[in-house]
């Protein structure tokens, strides 16, 4: 099954005092991979500034805007259309965790995945909470991660406005309220605690269903399951990342994936309003237009192989 997505992202920034010097960087363009193919990508701001494209430290595409004029408010708009495939996970290939442990603890494995095994400030469990969730040796690694996904979903309440971009796990665990980013951080910390390479993922979420986090840029995680590969889990919604999840970037935590980073030289207050629109349409297979899409996607797929 294939799906056609149209995504609109907009942000409106207003500043109390005029800004002479500013730079914004957006990490919002969906990336191409074996389950999604970006057809068109548009980005503009209300001043029609020349947008420069760059990449971040992990190789994901960014848009950068440096307005030449003095501004007090600015609107950024992006539009993407892409094709998404159903994601298939060969979960039956996962071994018992007790068996995987041997591979997980081997040096070549640790060397290969060390970047996604280490804690960051945002994904460090407090020392007395290291055993907050334990894996079951008699289950497969995949089942353990699914259980963790469910556990995080139940442990935290989706609540907007309690946490911010710098909330650490010790505070999150005490309040057990947060947004998608916090769900992902807690998942990352516990999975890494069990030596499962886990990356923080940012992206868009289909709005046709009543999923948590769909009204803004969403976050979930990807774990490397031995014998299976990278698998996406969405602890905010207790589901696997599937055709509803459109990936933008991954990193160690929120700081590597923040959708908007701005350097603004100004005093006074500023406000930022976001809106995200995601519209999904199932593919009608025999229309000629969609055939083109599929062939274009297949070309990309071959390249990836």
């Amino acid at each position: 099954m294939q799906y056609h997505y149209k995504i609109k992202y907009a942000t409106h920034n207003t500043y109390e005092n005029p800004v002479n010097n500013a730079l914004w960087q957006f990490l919002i363009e969906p990336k191409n991979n074996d389950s999604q193919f970006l057809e068109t990508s548009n980005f503009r701001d209300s001043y029609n500034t020349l947008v420069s494209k760059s990449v971040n430290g992990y190789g994901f595409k960014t848009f950068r805007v440096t307005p030449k004029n003095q501004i007090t408010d600015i609107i950024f708009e992006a539009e993407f259309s892409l094709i998404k495939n159903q994601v298939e996970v060969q979960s039956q290939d996962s071994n018992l965790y007790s068996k995987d442990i041997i591979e997980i603890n081997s040096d070549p494995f640790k060397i290969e995945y060390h970047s996604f095994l280490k804690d960051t400030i945002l994904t460090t469990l407090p020392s007395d909470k290291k055993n907050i969730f334990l894996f079951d040796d008699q289950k497969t690694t995949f089942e353990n991660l699914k259980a963790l996904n469910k556990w995080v979903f139940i442990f935290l309440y989706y609540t907007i406005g309690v946490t911010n971009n710098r909330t650490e796990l010790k505070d999150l665990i005490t309040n057990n309220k947060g947004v998608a980013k916090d769900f992902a951080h807690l998942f990352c910390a516990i999975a890494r605690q069990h030596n499962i390479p886990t990356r923080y993922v940012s992206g868009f979420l289909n709005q046709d269903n009543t999923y948590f986090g769909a009204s803004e840029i969403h976050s979930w995680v990807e774990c490397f399951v031995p014998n299976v590969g990278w698998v996406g889990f969405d602890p905010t919604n207790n589901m696997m990342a599937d055709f509803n999840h459109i990936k933008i970037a991954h990193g160690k935590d929120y700081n590597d994936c923040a959708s908007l980073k701005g350097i603004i030289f100004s005093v006074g207050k500023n406000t930022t309003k976001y809106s995200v629109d995601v519209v999904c349409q199932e593919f009608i297979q025999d229309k000629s237009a969609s055939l083109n899409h599929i062939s274009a996607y297949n070309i990309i797929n071959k390249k990836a192989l």
Partner: protein
Amino acid sequence: MESKKTLPIFSSYKTNPIFYDEIFKNDKEIRNTYDELFKLFNEYKVDDFKLLNEKAKLSFLNQGITFQVYDKTTVEKVFPFDLFPKIITADEWDHIESGALQRSKALNLFLYDVYHKKQIIKDGIVPIELISSSENYLDQMNGLEPPGGIYNHISGTDIIKHSDGEYYVLEDNIRCPSGVSYVVSNRVALKRAMFGVFNNYPTCPVANYSENLLEIMQSVKPAGVDIPTCVVITPGIYNSAYYEHSFLAKSMGIELVEGRDLFIEKDFVYMKTIYGPVKIDVIYRRIDDAFIDPLEFNPDSVLGVPGLFAAYKKGNVTLVNAPGTGVADDKAIYTYMPQIIKYYLNEEPILNNVHTYHCSRPKELAYVLDNIDKLVIKPVDESGGYGISIGNKLTKEEIEKVKAVIKETPRKYIAQPIMALSTHATFIDEKQCFEPRHVDLRTFTLLGKDKEFVLKGGLTRVALKEGNLIVNSSQGGGSKDTWVLKR
């Protein structure tokens, strides 16, 4: 030849047999190298000498060669300068020079490896934990090819002479080693104060450091650039090493900039000038990794240039030293230096390593906790002498405190036997005479594309407090001119 200690200026000089004294073999005999110099100094009366000393001090103050100590208050201080120089013979220097160069090269190959194939870890020489638990390892540097293959363009190697008369390396500094401006200005000050002494000693010049640094910077220019534009970037006037930043820029004849003077467009770096933007190709950055680019690293940094790292990653600008070199400057890596040298260069290490205990290893941790009074405890990721505890100088309560701290985060600490730093004659203001004080030596090594350079000289740092073994300027140390003799 024997010279008697008869004159008051050296009257209370008492050597301690535990330490290697660089001037006196024992209380009577002077080492050959210092013979002439000792005679010259002995011609001065105390009052004359005090006057010279004042002159030298003033010359530093007038040139603005001051530094700041990070403390509750921030005070501008003159880096205390001692007129009695340290002399290194040509043979001795060859040994130090080849040893320092060997270490820098090995560290560079090590850095290339840990950011690419990680073969040294796969081969089991260095454990993966040293990298996966290092805060200075930058994942963003993985797979990146720095121009010329050079990471540590500038290395500072801290060397001491132990009581056995052998040189030992205390640590390698390959983030932004500072101090080279003092090497040059110490020479200037000494020449101004007592020119005559140089007539008796054929001393290698140190003023050629800047031209060599510039050549090194130019050698690692980005691909496709003919004549690179180089700059030095400084955190600003409040940085403790600001004088050095301005000195280096001035003596290389290039611009000294702050983050706000640069901007990025389409992944190229430009400098704002009154004639319009000028493209920048090589940046000697004296800003720590975390602060160079708020878009990629610490978002609160106002010191760096937003977007600089992306420009670097694309190969449009070269950063000197490369980001992420801190992983090899970690004191836990230091322990593996002999193996690292052997692994990459297939050579025996020329300079000795001090035996080091890793608190992260349970057995060694137990030894450290039991023998804390015989050891120096150092945090692995600090510099400037901050956080160091010397076992035999601690009270019982302090020992318990240190123990508790180590047990909390063992990975953060290493321990070394208390090294007997050699002593050198140093003029003590309060006592108005020369007394032995502990010294070490920081050498400066430059690596470029098909080019290498070791400054013939270095920064001899001296601990001015009697018996003190920590020589860092931030801990109340001073410095001496360092002479490397020509053949």
